[in-house]
Protein backbone atom coordinates (compact mmCIF):
# COMPACT_ATOMS: atom_id res chain seq x y z
CA UNK A 1 0.00 0.00 0.00
CA UNK A 2 1.39 3.39 -0.86
CA UNK A 3 1.82 5.84 2.01
CA UNK A 4 1.27 9.57 1.90
CA UNK A 5 5.06 9.96 1.58
CA UNK A 6 5.14 7.63 -1.43
CA UNK A 7 2.44 9.65 -3.06
CA UNK A 8 4.19 12.92 -2.23
CA UNK A 9 7.52 11.71 -3.63
CA UNK A 10 5.79 10.59 -6.81
CA UNK A 11 4.04 13.95 -6.95
CA UNK A 12 7.45 15.65 -7.06
CA UNK A 13 9.20 13.15 -9.31
CA UNK A 14 6.62 13.09 -12.08
CA UNK A 15 7.10 16.86 -12.45
CA UNK A 16 10.89 16.68 -12.92
CA UNK A 17 12.77 15.35 -15.96
CA UNK A 18 13.35 11.60 -15.93
CA UNK A 19 17.13 12.03 -15.73
CA UNK A 20 16.93 13.79 -12.36
CA UNK A 21 14.48 11.39 -10.74
CA UNK A 22 16.85 8.66 -9.54
CA UNK A 23 19.01 11.30 -7.91
CA UNK A 24 16.19 13.27 -6.32
CA UNK A 25 14.08 10.44 -4.93
CA UNK A 26 16.36 9.28 -2.04
CA UNK A 27 17.06 12.93 -1.17
CA UNK A 28 13.40 13.83 -0.78
CA UNK A 29 12.65 10.62 1.11
CA UNK A 30 15.50 11.35 3.53
CA UNK A 31 14.28 14.92 4.06
CA UNK A 32 10.78 13.77 4.90
CA UNK A 33 12.01 10.96 7.15
CA UNK A 34 14.34 13.35 9.02
CA UNK A 35 11.57 15.83 9.60
CA UNK A 36 9.17 13.15 10.82
CA UNK A 37 11.84 11.70 13.10
CA UNK A 38 12.74 15.10 14.56
CA UNK A 39 9.11 15.74 15.45
CA UNK A 40 8.46 12.36 17.04
CA UNK A 41 11.78 12.39 18.93
CA UNK A 42 10.66 15.40 20.96
CA UNK A 43 8.10 13.15 22.70
CA UNK A 44 5.45 11.90 20.36
CA UNK A 45 2.14 13.44 21.26
CA UNK A 46 0.60 12.91 17.84
CA UNK A 47 -0.03 9.67 16.00
CA UNK A 48 2.52 8.94 13.26
CA UNK A 49 0.27 9.64 10.30
CA UNK A 50 -0.64 13.06 11.71
CA UNK A 51 3.07 13.93 11.95
CA UNK A 52 3.64 12.73 8.39
CA UNK A 53 0.69 14.79 7.27
CA UNK A 54 1.95 17.98 8.91
CA UNK A 55 5.49 17.48 7.58
CA UNK A 56 4.16 17.11 4.04
CA UNK A 57 1.87 20.11 4.53
CA UNK A 58 4.89 22.20 5.49
CA UNK A 59 6.79 21.06 2.39
CA UNK A 60 3.85 22.28 0.32
CA UNK A 61 2.53 21.44 -3.13
CA UNK A 62 4.86 18.83 -4.67
CA UNK A 63 4.61 20.48 -8.07
CA UNK A 64 5.78 23.78 -6.59
CA UNK A 65 8.71 21.98 -4.95
CA UNK A 66 9.56 20.26 -8.24
CA UNK A 67 9.40 23.61 -10.01
CA UNK A 68 11.89 25.05 -7.52
CA UNK A 69 14.21 22.09 -8.01
CA UNK A 70 14.15 22.49 -11.77
CA UNK A 71 13.95 26.31 -11.95
CA UNK A 72 10.69 26.03 -13.81
CA UNK A 73 8.50 29.12 -14.07
CA UNK A 74 5.21 29.02 -12.23
CA UNK A 75 3.60 31.64 -14.45
CA UNK A 76 2.66 31.89 -18.11
CA UNK A 77 4.14 35.30 -18.89
CA UNK A 78 6.46 36.91 -16.36
CA UNK A 79 7.38 40.54 -15.77
CA UNK A 80 10.03 40.36 -18.49
CA UNK A 81 7.57 39.91 -21.33
CA UNK A 82 4.25 40.94 -19.80
CA UNK A 83 4.43 44.55 -20.99
CA UNK A 84 5.50 43.55 -24.51
CA UNK A 85 2.59 41.08 -24.62
CA UNK A 86 0.13 43.71 -23.43
CA UNK A 87 1.40 46.32 -25.90
CA UNK A 88 1.24 43.89 -28.82
CA UNK A 89 -2.31 42.88 -28.02
CA UNK A 90 -3.55 46.42 -27.43
CA UNK A 91 -2.00 47.55 -30.71
CA UNK A 92 -3.09 44.64 -32.87
CA UNK A 93 -6.64 44.02 -31.63
CA UNK A 94 -8.12 47.49 -32.26
CA UNK A 95 -6.86 47.35 -35.85
CA UNK A 96 -7.56 43.77 -36.88
CA UNK A 97 -10.93 43.28 -35.19
CA UNK A 98 -12.84 46.24 -36.71
CA UNK A 99 -11.27 45.56 -40.13
CA UNK A 100 -12.36 41.93 -40.13
CA UNK A 101 -15.83 42.72 -38.79
CA UNK A 102 -16.38 45.39 -41.43
CA UNK A 103 -15.11 43.24 -44.29
CA UNK A 104 -17.23 40.27 -43.27
CA UNK A 105 -20.36 42.36 -42.79
CA UNK A 106 -19.64 44.13 -46.07
CA UNK A 107 -19.20 40.88 -47.94
CA UNK A 108 -22.44 39.53 -46.46
CA UNK A 109 -24.32 42.69 -47.32
CA UNK A 110 -23.05 42.64 -50.91
CA UNK A 111 -23.92 38.97 -51.20
CA UNK A 112 -27.46 40.26 -50.89
CA UNK A 113 -29.07 37.10 -49.56
CA UNK A 114 -28.80 37.93 -45.86
CA UNK A 115 -31.17 39.85 -43.59
CA UNK A 116 -29.90 42.74 -41.44
CA UNK A 117 -30.07 40.43 -38.41
CA UNK A 118 -27.91 37.81 -40.10
CA UNK A 119 -25.37 40.42 -41.16
CA UNK A 120 -25.10 41.91 -37.66
CA UNK A 121 -25.00 38.47 -36.05
CA UNK A 122 -22.25 37.44 -38.42
CA UNK A 123 -20.26 40.57 -37.58
CA UNK A 124 -20.59 39.99 -33.82
CA UNK A 125 -19.55 36.35 -34.21
CA UNK A 126 -16.54 37.21 -36.36
CA UNK A 127 -15.52 39.95 -33.92
CA UNK A 128 -15.68 37.48 -31.04
CA UNK A 129 -13.77 34.77 -32.91
CA UNK A 130 -11.05 37.08 -34.18
CA UNK A 131 -10.57 38.58 -30.70
CA UNK A 132 -10.35 35.24 -28.92
CA UNK A 133 -8.18 33.60 -31.60
CA UNK A 134 -5.75 36.51 -31.75
CA UNK A 135 -5.52 36.79 -27.98
CA UNK A 136 -5.04 33.04 -27.62
CA UNK A 137 -2.33 32.61 -30.23
CA UNK A 138 -0.46 35.74 -29.20
CA UNK A 139 -0.46 34.50 -25.62
CA UNK A 140 0.73 31.05 -26.69
CA UNK A 141 3.55 32.67 -28.65
CA UNK A 142 4.61 34.73 -25.64
CA UNK A 143 4.40 31.74 -23.29
CA UNK A 144 6.82 29.94 -25.62
CA UNK A 145 9.10 32.96 -25.85
CA UNK A 146 9.14 33.17 -22.05
CA UNK A 147 10.30 29.55 -21.91
CA UNK A 148 12.80 29.72 -24.75
CA UNK A 149 14.66 32.71 -23.31
CA UNK A 150 14.56 34.24 -26.77
CA UNK A 151 15.63 37.82 -26.89
CA UNK A 152 12.80 40.18 -27.65
CA UNK A 153 14.74 43.36 -27.12
CA UNK A 154 13.21 45.21 -30.04
CA UNK A 155 9.65 44.37 -29.13
CA UNK A 156 9.84 44.35 -25.38
CA UNK A 157 12.69 46.69 -24.63
CA UNK A 158 11.71 50.13 -23.51
CA UNK A 159 13.29 53.36 -24.63
CA UNK A 160 12.10 56.94 -24.18
CA UNK A 161 11.03 56.82 -27.86
CA UNK A 162 8.22 54.54 -26.80
CA UNK A 163 6.66 57.13 -24.54
CA UNK A 164 3.01 57.56 -25.51
CA UNK A 165 1.96 60.86 -27.03
CA UNK A 166 -0.12 62.94 -24.66
CA UNK A 167 -3.66 62.64 -26.02
CA UNK A 168 -4.84 65.74 -27.80
CA UNK A 169 -8.57 66.50 -27.63
CA UNK A 170 -10.07 66.06 -31.06
CA UNK A 171 -7.41 63.69 -32.29
CA UNK A 172 -8.96 60.55 -33.73
CA UNK A 173 -7.93 57.38 -31.95
CA UNK A 174 -6.24 54.56 -33.87
CA UNK A 175 -9.57 52.73 -33.79
CA UNK A 176 -11.42 55.63 -35.37
CA UNK A 177 -8.66 55.90 -37.95
CA UNK A 178 -8.93 52.21 -38.80
CA UNK A 179 -12.71 52.42 -38.99
CA UNK A 180 -12.75 55.42 -41.33
CA UNK A 181 -10.05 54.00 -43.59
CA UNK A 182 -11.86 50.66 -43.75
CA UNK A 183 -15.16 52.38 -44.51
CA UNK A 184 -13.64 54.49 -47.30
CA UNK A 185 -11.78 51.60 -48.89
CA UNK A 186 -14.96 49.59 -48.74
CA UNK A 187 -16.97 52.36 -50.45
CA UNK A 188 -14.45 52.75 -53.28
CA UNK A 189 -14.14 48.99 -53.62
CA UNK A 190 -17.90 48.64 -53.84
CA UNK A 191 -18.21 51.16 -56.69
CA UNK A 192 -15.59 49.32 -58.76
CA UNK A 193 -16.76 45.85 -57.72
CA UNK A 194 -20.42 46.35 -58.67
CA UNK A 195 -19.30 47.20 -62.21
CA UNK A 196 -16.70 44.44 -62.59
CA UNK A 197 -18.61 41.64 -60.88
CA UNK A 198 -22.05 42.71 -62.14
CA UNK A 199 -23.73 41.03 -59.17
CA UNK A 200 -27.39 41.27 -60.26
CA UNK A 201 -28.06 38.02 -62.04
CA UNK A 202 -31.47 37.56 -63.65
CA UNK A 203 -32.22 34.84 -66.14
CA UNK A 204 -28.57 33.98 -66.74
CA UNK A 205 -27.75 37.62 -67.55
CA UNK A 206 -25.67 39.65 -65.06
CA UNK A 207 -25.95 43.40 -64.60
CA UNK A 208 -23.94 46.05 -62.74
CA UNK A 209 -25.96 47.78 -59.96
CA UNK A 210 -25.26 51.35 -61.05
CA UNK A 211 -25.98 52.80 -64.47
CA UNK A 212 -22.74 52.25 -66.48
CA UNK A 213 -23.43 55.60 -68.18
CA UNK A 214 -22.53 57.28 -64.86
CA UNK A 215 -18.87 56.31 -65.46
CA UNK A 216 -18.76 59.32 -67.77
CA UNK A 217 -18.74 61.57 -64.71
CA UNK A 218 -20.46 60.69 -61.43
CA UNK A 219 -18.84 57.38 -60.51
CA UNK A 220 -15.28 58.72 -61.06
CA UNK A 221 -16.41 61.78 -59.08
CA UNK A 222 -17.36 59.56 -56.10
CA UNK A 223 -14.05 57.69 -56.37
CA UNK A 224 -12.17 60.98 -56.38
CA UNK A 225 -14.10 62.22 -53.33
CA UNK A 226 -13.31 58.96 -51.52
CA UNK A 227 -9.61 59.35 -52.40
CA UNK A 228 -9.67 62.92 -51.05
CA UNK A 229 -11.40 61.70 -47.88
CA UNK A 230 -8.61 59.14 -47.41
CA UNK A 231 -5.95 61.83 -47.76
CA UNK A 232 -7.91 64.11 -45.43
CA UNK A 233 -8.25 61.35 -42.81
CA UNK A 234 -4.50 60.84 -42.90
CA UNK A 235 -3.86 64.58 -42.59
CA UNK A 236 -6.17 64.99 -39.57
CA UNK A 237 -4.55 62.02 -37.89
CA UNK A 238 -1.03 63.32 -38.43
CA UNK A 239 -2.01 66.86 -37.47
CA UNK A 240 -3.31 65.38 -34.24
CA UNK A 241 -5.80 68.17 -33.70
CA UNK A 242 -9.03 69.28 -35.24
CA UNK A 243 -9.14 72.89 -36.41
CA UNK A 244 -11.96 75.00 -37.88
CA UNK A 245 -10.55 74.73 -41.44
CA UNK A 246 -10.53 70.95 -41.01
CA UNK A 247 -14.19 71.07 -39.99
CA UNK A 248 -15.01 73.06 -43.15
CA UNK A 249 -13.06 70.70 -45.44
CA UNK A 250 -14.69 67.74 -43.71
CA UNK A 251 -18.18 69.12 -44.31
CA UNK A 252 -17.41 70.00 -47.95
CA UNK A 253 -16.15 66.49 -48.64
CA UNK A 254 -19.14 64.92 -46.89
CA UNK A 255 -21.53 67.06 -48.93
CA UNK A 256 -19.58 66.41 -52.16
CA UNK A 257 -20.35 62.74 -51.66
CA UNK A 258 -23.76 62.86 -50.01
CA UNK A 259 -25.60 65.46 -52.08
CA UNK A 260 -24.97 63.95 -55.56
CA UNK A 261 -25.56 60.46 -54.19
CA UNK A 262 -28.96 61.37 -52.76
CA UNK A 263 -29.86 63.34 -55.87
CA UNK A 264 -28.97 60.43 -58.17
CA UNK A 265 -30.93 57.97 -56.03
CA UNK A 266 -34.09 60.07 -55.61
CA UNK A 267 -34.23 60.96 -59.31
CA UNK A 268 -33.73 57.28 -60.21
CA UNK A 269 -30.57 57.93 -62.23
CA UNK A 270 -28.26 55.82 -60.08
CA UNK A 271 -29.63 52.37 -60.85
CA UNK A 272 -28.72 50.48 -63.98
CA UNK A 273 -31.84 50.78 -66.20
CA UNK A 274 -31.12 47.42 -67.84
CA UNK A 275 -31.07 45.74 -64.43
CA UNK A 276 -34.22 47.60 -63.39
CA UNK A 277 -36.05 46.42 -66.53
CA UNK A 278 -34.91 42.85 -65.91
CA UNK A 279 -36.04 43.08 -62.28
CA UNK A 280 -39.39 44.44 -63.38
CA UNK A 281 -39.77 41.61 -65.87
CA UNK A 282 -38.95 39.14 -63.13
CA UNK A 283 -41.56 40.71 -60.86
CA UNK A 284 -39.18 42.32 -58.35
CA UNK A 285 -39.90 45.93 -59.26
CA UNK A 286 -41.56 46.65 -55.90
CA UNK A 287 -38.22 46.30 -54.10
CA UNK A 288 -36.28 49.03 -55.90
CA UNK A 289 -38.02 52.17 -54.63
CA UNK A 290 -38.07 51.26 -50.88
CA UNK A 291 -34.42 50.14 -51.02
CA UNK A 292 -33.53 53.46 -52.67
CA UNK A 293 -35.41 55.42 -50.00
CA UNK A 294 -33.64 53.59 -47.15
CA UNK A 295 -30.21 54.13 -48.71
CA UNK A 296 -30.95 57.81 -49.42
CA UNK A 297 -32.08 58.44 -45.82
CA UNK A 298 -28.98 56.64 -44.51
CA UNK A 299 -26.71 58.80 -46.65
CA UNK A 300 -28.47 61.99 -45.49
CA UNK A 301 -28.09 61.00 -41.83
CA UNK A 302 -24.40 60.01 -42.19
CA UNK A 303 -23.54 63.15 -44.18
CA UNK A 304 -25.26 65.44 -41.68
CA UNK A 305 -23.73 63.68 -38.67
CA UNK A 306 -20.25 63.67 -40.21
CA UNK A 307 -20.37 67.39 -41.04
CA UNK A 308 -21.70 68.42 -37.62
CA UNK A 309 -19.24 66.10 -35.85
CA UNK A 310 -16.32 67.93 -37.50
CA UNK A 311 -17.51 71.27 -36.11
CA UNK A 312 -18.11 69.78 -32.66
CA UNK A 313 -14.55 68.45 -32.63
CA UNK A 314 -13.13 71.79 -33.73
CA UNK A 315 -15.15 73.54 -31.03
CA UNK A 316 -13.92 71.11 -28.34
CA UNK A 317 -10.31 71.50 -29.44
CA UNK A 318 -10.47 75.29 -29.49
CA UNK A 319 -12.12 75.31 -26.06
CA UNK A 320 -9.51 73.03 -24.51
CA UNK A 321 -6.65 75.02 -26.07
CA UNK A 322 -7.95 78.32 -24.70
CA UNK A 323 -8.58 76.66 -21.34
CA UNK A 324 -4.98 75.44 -21.43
CA UNK A 325 -3.71 78.98 -22.05
CA UNK A 326 -5.79 80.54 -19.30
Amino acid sequence: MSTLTDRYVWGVLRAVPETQRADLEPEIRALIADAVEARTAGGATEPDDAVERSVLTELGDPEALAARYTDRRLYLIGPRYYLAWKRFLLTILPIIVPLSVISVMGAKAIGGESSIGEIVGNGVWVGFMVTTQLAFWFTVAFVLIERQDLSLEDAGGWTPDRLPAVPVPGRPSIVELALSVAGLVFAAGFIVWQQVAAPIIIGGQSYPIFDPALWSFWLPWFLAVVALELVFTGVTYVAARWTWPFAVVNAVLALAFGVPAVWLITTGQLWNPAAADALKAAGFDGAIAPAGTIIAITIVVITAWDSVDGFVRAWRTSRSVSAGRA
Partner: protein
Amino acid sequence: MDFDEILSGGQQELRRGTVVLACLLLLREPGYGYALLDRLRELGFVVDANTLYPLLRRLETQGMLASEWNTTEARPRKFYRISPDGERLAAELLADWTRLDASIRRLHQGDPR
Protein backbone atom coordinates in the same frame (compact mmCIF):
# COMPACT_ATOMS: atom_id res chain seq x y z
CA MET B 1 -1.96 47.79 6.02
CA ASP B 2 -0.91 47.75 9.67
CA PHE B 3 2.59 48.21 11.00
CA ASP B 4 3.26 44.51 11.62
CA GLU B 5 2.58 43.70 7.98
CA ILE B 6 4.89 46.48 6.79
CA LEU B 7 7.56 45.27 9.24
CA SER B 8 7.41 41.66 8.11
CA GLY B 9 7.51 42.76 4.47
CA GLY B 10 10.62 44.85 5.18
CA GLN B 11 12.28 42.03 7.09
CA GLN B 12 11.58 39.63 4.26
CA GLU B 13 13.24 41.98 1.78
CA LEU B 14 16.20 42.47 4.11
CA ARG B 15 16.74 38.76 4.76
CA ARG B 16 16.35 37.55 1.21
CA GLY B 17 19.78 36.52 0.07
CA THR B 18 21.30 36.16 3.52
CA VAL B 19 20.26 32.49 3.52
CA VAL B 20 22.80 31.68 0.78
CA LEU B 21 25.64 33.18 2.79
CA ALA B 22 24.45 31.53 6.01
CA CYS B 23 24.28 28.11 4.29
CA LEU B 24 27.78 28.47 2.87
CA LEU B 25 29.20 29.44 6.26
CA LEU B 26 27.31 26.69 8.13
CA LEU B 27 28.45 24.07 5.63
CA ARG B 28 32.12 24.56 6.46
CA GLU B 29 31.08 21.66 8.67
CA PRO B 30 29.34 18.92 6.63
CA GLY B 31 25.62 18.84 7.24
CA TYR B 32 22.41 17.36 5.84
CA GLY B 33 19.23 19.11 4.80
CA TYR B 34 16.99 18.83 7.81
CA ALA B 35 19.76 19.55 10.36
CA LEU B 36 20.71 22.63 8.36
CA LEU B 37 17.12 23.85 8.31
CA ASP B 38 16.87 23.34 12.05
CA ARG B 39 20.14 25.19 12.71
CA LEU B 40 19.19 28.13 10.47
CA ARG B 41 15.88 28.48 12.30
CA GLU B 42 17.64 28.40 15.68
CA LEU B 43 19.84 31.23 14.45
CA GLY B 44 16.76 33.25 13.55
CA PHE B 45 16.75 32.88 9.75
CA VAL B 46 13.24 32.56 8.41
CA VAL B 47 13.47 29.91 5.71
CA ASP B 48 11.02 27.36 4.36
CA ALA B 49 11.94 23.74 3.78
CA ASN B 50 10.71 23.93 0.20
CA THR B 51 13.02 26.89 -0.46
CA LEU B 52 16.10 25.60 1.34
CA TYR B 53 16.30 22.15 -0.24
CA PRO B 54 16.16 23.32 -3.85
CA LEU B 55 18.64 26.06 -2.91
CA LEU B 56 21.15 23.49 -1.62
CA ARG B 57 20.80 21.52 -4.81
CA ARG B 58 21.26 24.62 -6.95
CA LEU B 59 24.41 25.61 -5.06
CA GLU B 60 25.65 22.07 -5.61
CA THR B 61 25.09 22.15 -9.39
CA GLN B 62 26.76 25.56 -9.45
CA GLY B 63 29.78 23.96 -7.80
CA MET B 64 29.56 26.00 -4.61
CA LEU B 65 28.77 22.92 -2.51
CA ALA B 66 29.94 19.31 -2.71
CA SER B 67 27.82 16.42 -1.55
CA GLU B 68 28.14 12.79 -0.64
CA TRP B 69 25.79 10.16 0.66
CA ASN B 70 26.50 9.02 4.20
CA THR B 71 25.40 5.41 4.57
CA THR B 72 27.00 4.58 7.92
CA GLU B 73 23.92 5.62 9.87
CA ALA B 74 20.53 3.93 10.07
CA ARG B 75 19.23 5.92 7.15
CA PRO B 76 21.25 7.19 4.18
CA ARG B 77 21.55 10.98 4.18
CA LYS B 78 23.00 13.40 1.69
CA PHE B 79 25.68 15.51 3.36
CA TYR B 80 26.65 18.84 1.84
CA ARG B 81 29.98 20.59 2.34
CA ILE B 82 31.33 23.89 1.06
CA SER B 83 33.69 23.63 -1.95
CA PRO B 84 36.76 25.82 -2.65
CA ASP B 85 34.64 27.86 -5.12
CA GLY B 86 32.01 28.12 -2.39
CA GLU B 87 34.63 29.53 -0.03
CA ARG B 88 35.50 32.20 -2.60
CA LEU B 89 31.83 33.09 -3.00
CA ALA B 90 31.37 33.19 0.77
CA ALA B 91 34.37 35.49 1.18
CA GLU B 92 33.03 37.91 -1.45
CA LEU B 93 29.52 37.91 0.00
CA LEU B 94 30.90 38.37 3.49
CA ALA B 95 32.93 41.39 2.36
CA ASP B 96 29.76 42.82 0.80
CA TRP B 97 27.82 42.20 3.98
CA THR B 98 30.49 43.99 6.02
CA ARG B 99 30.47 46.97 3.67
CA LEU B 100 26.68 47.21 3.84
CA ASP B 101 26.77 46.96 7.61
CA ALA B 102 29.34 49.76 7.82
CA SER B 103 27.33 51.96 5.43
CA ILE B 104 24.11 51.45 7.35
CA ARG B 105 25.87 52.26 10.61
CA ARG B 106 27.30 55.44 9.15
CA LEU B 107 23.86 56.50 7.92
CA HIS B 108 22.36 55.72 11.29
CA GLN B 109 24.97 57.74 13.14
CA GLY B 110 24.55 60.66 10.77
CA ASP B 111 28.06 60.59 9.26
CA PRO B 112 27.66 62.53 5.97
CA ARG B 113 30.36 60.63 4.02
